[in-house]
């Protein structure tokens, strides 16, 4: 019996709540190889892991379409609800009414959001429900083989060469006008920016609307498409450089207030937007919408955090519901007393 020296295997890397990145993973994707949506799933996993979010507190929501399948491909330890086409916002709203302690994450597409679900999208934005709403925006209906969606740009072509002759909806401009309190656009291929914006989104209390251009490699990645990888690489125009310091990390990087706009988030985190161009105030809705309109005219795809209001009350705040989630209130708190019924009856006598 000899002795051997064994070096213990290196402890797996964990986050601040002791979980490994594997604890945030999901099932194997069934989307096409190279699909932008898969990259977004990866960024969600990284952001949730780095922010140390308890997966059991997250509830995932989606509608119908390729994008809406993706919640199956990340965070298996979170409950998920794949609902009906365009109506995910109402399901998410109901769940948050039942349990305000949940962290709601909606993943949806441009068809879900802007066409069949336009009505529910509008009212979700108006309510400022605490929720991250991600549009995986590829300008087409992938699951039904590539028809135009309402975010397809004017003149963008299908594979068959047919050009789109209707103007696109800018979901960001729409969300800002409607009352969302954190609105941005990114690109599935812009790993750093998307990752940072997702972490800031997790820290926000209110509706986060992220439009993420996410090319459809099978039906909308050709010459003539304005939602292709190639087009995005050539036309993405970051409004600023986005960085984020979570509340649990010490802030040890100085920044120049002259060139960087800092937003203190609800939980004490810090979102920093380093100016790359002229003065831009992301707390000014009018300026935000105006800048978006200008970028369309210039043929750019503007990305970044266009608008943020870290202080607005959320829908849940406004409802003044009791601290314990409504879902698990005991009968003693949800059934009024005998005296209460007697009083009701007396009033009707």
């Amino acid at each position, binding site marked *: 019996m000899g002795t051997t020296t064994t070096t213990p295997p290196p402890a797996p890397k964990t986050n601040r709540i002791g979980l490994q990145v594997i*604890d945030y993973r999901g099932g194997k994707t069934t989307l096409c190889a190279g699909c932008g949506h898969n990259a977004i799933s990866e960024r969600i996993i990284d952001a949730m892991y780095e922010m140390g979010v*308890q*997966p*059991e*507190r997250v*509830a995932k*929501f989606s509608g119908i379409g390729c994008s809406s399948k993706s*919640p*199956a491909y990340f965070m*298996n*330890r*979170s*409950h*998920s*609800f*794949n*609902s*009906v086409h365009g*109506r995910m*916002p*109402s*399901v*998410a*709203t*109901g*769940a*948050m*009414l*039942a*349990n305000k*302690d*949940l962290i709601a994450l909606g993943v949806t597409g441009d068809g879900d959001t802007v066409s069949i679900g336009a*009505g*529910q999208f*509008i*009212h979700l934005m108006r309510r400022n429900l605490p929720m991250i709403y991600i549009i995986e925006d590829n300008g087409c209906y992938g699951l039904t083989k590539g028809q135009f969606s309402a975010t397809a740009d004017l003149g963008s072509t299908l594979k068959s060469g047919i050009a789109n002759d209707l103007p696109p909806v800018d979901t960001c401009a729409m969300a800002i006008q409607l009352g969302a309190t954190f609105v941005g656009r990114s690109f599935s291929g812009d790993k750093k920016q998307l990752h940072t914006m997702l972490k800031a989104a997790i820290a926000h209390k209110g509706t986060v609307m992220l439009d993420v251009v996410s090319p459809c490699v099978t039906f909308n990645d050709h010459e003539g498409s304005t939602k292709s990888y190639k087009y995005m690489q050539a036309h993405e125009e970051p409004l600023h450089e986005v960085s984020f310091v979570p509340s649990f990390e010490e802030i040890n990087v100085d920044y120049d207030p002259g060139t960087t706009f800092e937003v203190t988030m609800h939980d004490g985190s810090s979102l920093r937007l380093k100016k790359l161009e002229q003065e831009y105030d992301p707390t000014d809705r009018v300026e935000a919408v105006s800048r978006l309109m200008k970028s369309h005219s210039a043929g750019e795809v503007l990305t970044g955090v266009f608008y943020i209001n870290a202080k607005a009350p959320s829908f849940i705040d406004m*409802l*003044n*519901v*009791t*601290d314990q*989630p*409504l*879902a*698990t*209130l005991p*009968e003693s*708190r*949800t*059934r*009024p007393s*005998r005296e*209460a*019924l007697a009083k*009701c*009856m007396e009033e*009707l*006598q």
Partner: protein
Amino acid sequence: MATTDIVPRESSGGLGHKRVVNDMSIQVATVNGSGSQSSNTVLLRSIFQMGVPISGKNLFPSNIAGLPTWYTIRANKDGYIGRKKEIDLLIAMNAETAQDDVKTLAPGASVLYDEPLALDKLRDDVIFYAVPYDKLAATVGAEAKLRKLIKNMIYVGVAAQLLEIEYAEVEKAIRKQFSAKAKATNLNLAAAKAGHDYAAANLKKRDPFYIQRMDKTKGMIIVDGNSAAAMGCMFAGCTVVTWYPITPSSSLVETMIDYMKEYRIGADGKATFAIVQAEDELAAVGMVIGAAWAGARSMTATAGPGISLMAEFVGLAYYVEVPAVIWNIQRVGPSTGLPTRTAQGDILSTALLSHGDTKHIMLIPNSMIECFTMAQDAFDLAERFQTPVFVMSDLDLGMNNWMSDPFPYPEKPIDRGKVLSKEDLEKLGGFARYKDVDGDGVGYRTLPGTDHPAAAYFARGSGHNEKAQYSERPDDFERNMERINKKFETARSFVPRPELAGSGKAKVGIIAYGTSHWALIEARDQLKNEHNLETDYLRLRAYPFTREVHDFIEKHERTYIVEQNRDGQMASLIKLDIKPELVTRLRSICHIHGLPMDARSITDELMMMEGK
């Protein structure tokens, strides 16, 4: 537009004949928005306080102001409170409809009219009383703008005097109606008095109708079905209500808001509920489903058009197996139909709502107490079977005034169904969401937010296996659908059982449900007393049907199914459920005119079908 048939029958009165005591119907014809509702409630309450059974039905148009509206009060010593077809006393306040209203009266009826309308020339077989409302209103001393309203309380005073309603009861009812407002109370007291005094001094009683004190309403309440449902839901522990306004269901949620604000704010000053007005019915039911999935006792209230819009989502809840309580306060369809009229026209479409193989539990209340108690039944069944449950009320039940015994305090503990907690998961190690562990078809569920790594599952409307994983395997799909069907079969022994009336030995059976009940009990007495026809009666209270329904049909030579729709919708559902050889025993009696069902029409039609 009249509310009675064109060919009148004899009124139970008659010129100068016998006294008719505590058996009459009063119809007040007014204009929508003229403020007659308070007056009509006072008249109704005055009679109720005299101990006489009553009901009050508002027959109104889909309009805010300006169109004709009728309020009918039925007072009946025997407790028949369904609609009576014939009008005994017409209070004609609407110049536009007055002539028609008078023409359609039965001979022997009486009319109280505004003097300038000069209706007394129209017929000589009814009794007329003229009242100079404008002059009387002026003497009350109300400001000009209030005079129109005050006229309404004047007719209450006149009617009370003519019918010999004790005047103290009128005063009491006025005080209750305007409880918090001293000025309004005094003005209305003065108006009623002016009418009463005028009648005493100027009108000679010629009709035979009288109200006399009796003791059949002691301890009872007057309420509408929507308010009863609102209370029922509150005491059933409902926590989330999401809705979209639609007649005739809006008042259910609006009343519930008031009750919840009074009784469901905790010691911390915070609400133990959330009520949200959604952007449409799709969102309303979507929120109900999201909330129920996350563990709340959630509900919505709507009517036919809303039900149609909810179809897709209801199929999702059925297949994903999420509890949901949906109140369908039925009105007349198809399409916009008659939005302010009553029907039982959504039975078939609700039972099978959504695409694919779907079928749903329906509870059918017929009374104020059942609107209250079935609220808890609905939530308990929805959570027990993890499926949508519909409560099929209607406009007549929901929006009209009914007397009732006070509601019993719910003794049954709230049933939250099969939900696994963190502790359960620690013991079990994991679970399969759609596995039939107990043999009743119902799997165990977990709520989002449950702090256990094995708690999560993926709820999806697409094909799935026992573990809630995506699956298109034929055997997975078939097994799952059969299991869901098993839940429905299990539910048969959990839903409220039908109620049997009669000896059980009659040759003729009658099946009815919901508000048809009130016409039906009166019709059965008419059949027995006028035609010597004994009947047995089974009142359905739920779908799926229980054993009693099959047995009832089997025991009777023929069974009439009475309902308020065109196609015999409940009859169709029953036919799907019974042995084929029994189908020929069924006969349908259907009414679709939008007015609450009346006994006489049932009796006549049934006797005709009996060949007599």
